């Protein structure tokens, strides 16, 4: 792929992640910390986020299998998950986390279960998009 075309594609993809609401300003803060001494900083932090969030998702899934539901526990797990999302600027995922916590407050089990599917969907979607973005960005760097 032509170098300029590749760079344009990377820039366009990055812009779409913000325009479509997947990412917020915190992601820009991470990009500002990336430099020659930390060339893969953003991808490193995103990887740490996905490692941590996988554990939190398992915890929430187990908690949602309980009967009756412990809404305080669910809220606590989701609070941790939402906090983790804030570290990388995962805006859409965070919004779904907020919705889940509202259902916890209302002790609405069905709402929690439905919204959790949305949380996982947005979480997976963002992961796919960021994986593609990082791969493209690396190709862009490699082409000079």
């Amino acid at each position: 792929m032509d170098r300029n075309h590749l760079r344009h594609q990377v820039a366009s993809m990055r812009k779409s992640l913000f325009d479509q609401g997947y990412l917020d300003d915190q992601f820009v803060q991470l990009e500002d910390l990336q430099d020659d001494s930390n060339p893969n900083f953003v991808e490193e932090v995103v990887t740490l986020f996905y490692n941590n969030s996988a554990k939190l998702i398992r915890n929430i899934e187990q908690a949602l299998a309980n009967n009756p539901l412990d809404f305080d526990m669910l809220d606590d797990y989701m609070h941790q998950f939402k906090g983790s999302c804030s570290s990388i600027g995962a805006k859409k995922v965070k919004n779904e986390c907020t919705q889940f916590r509202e259902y916890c407050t209302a002790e609405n089990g069905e709402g929690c279960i439905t919204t959790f599917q949305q949380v996982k969907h947005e979480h997976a979607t963002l992961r796919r998009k960021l994986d593609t973005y990082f791969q493209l960005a690396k190709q862009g760097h490699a082409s000079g």
Partner: protein
Amino acid sequence: MAFRIGTSNSKCKKVGGNQKICVLIVDDDRATRRIHSALLNKFGVETQVAENGKEAVDLYRSGASFDLVIMDMEMPVMDGPTATQELRRMGVNSMIVGVTSRGQDSEKQAFMRAGLDDCHVKPLNSNTIASLLQQVNKNH
């Protein structure tokens, strides 16, 4: 921008005759520790990390000292408020700044009462870090 202090009881290693500010980052989340470390390193500050409040307390008990402690509120083993209270009880007068993803004032105030000098929503940004480091410099 690099921060230097004139005199300090910090045990951080000296670089070029000047003593760098040394910050302890206490957080159970690896991503947050990584972010806060990188932010502080950009200001030329040395950092050390602890995964929970007990590790932070144990560091001080072993003789380490820091110019600034960034203390997460919710951690396993020993949380931020408990660790902060313990450090103050031990006579630690380092600047301790709490960080939390809980935005409610009542929760931040409860954390402050444990003995913090300040409390912020996490993750911290470069403006907040700069302001905290200026405060550390003033205190010396």
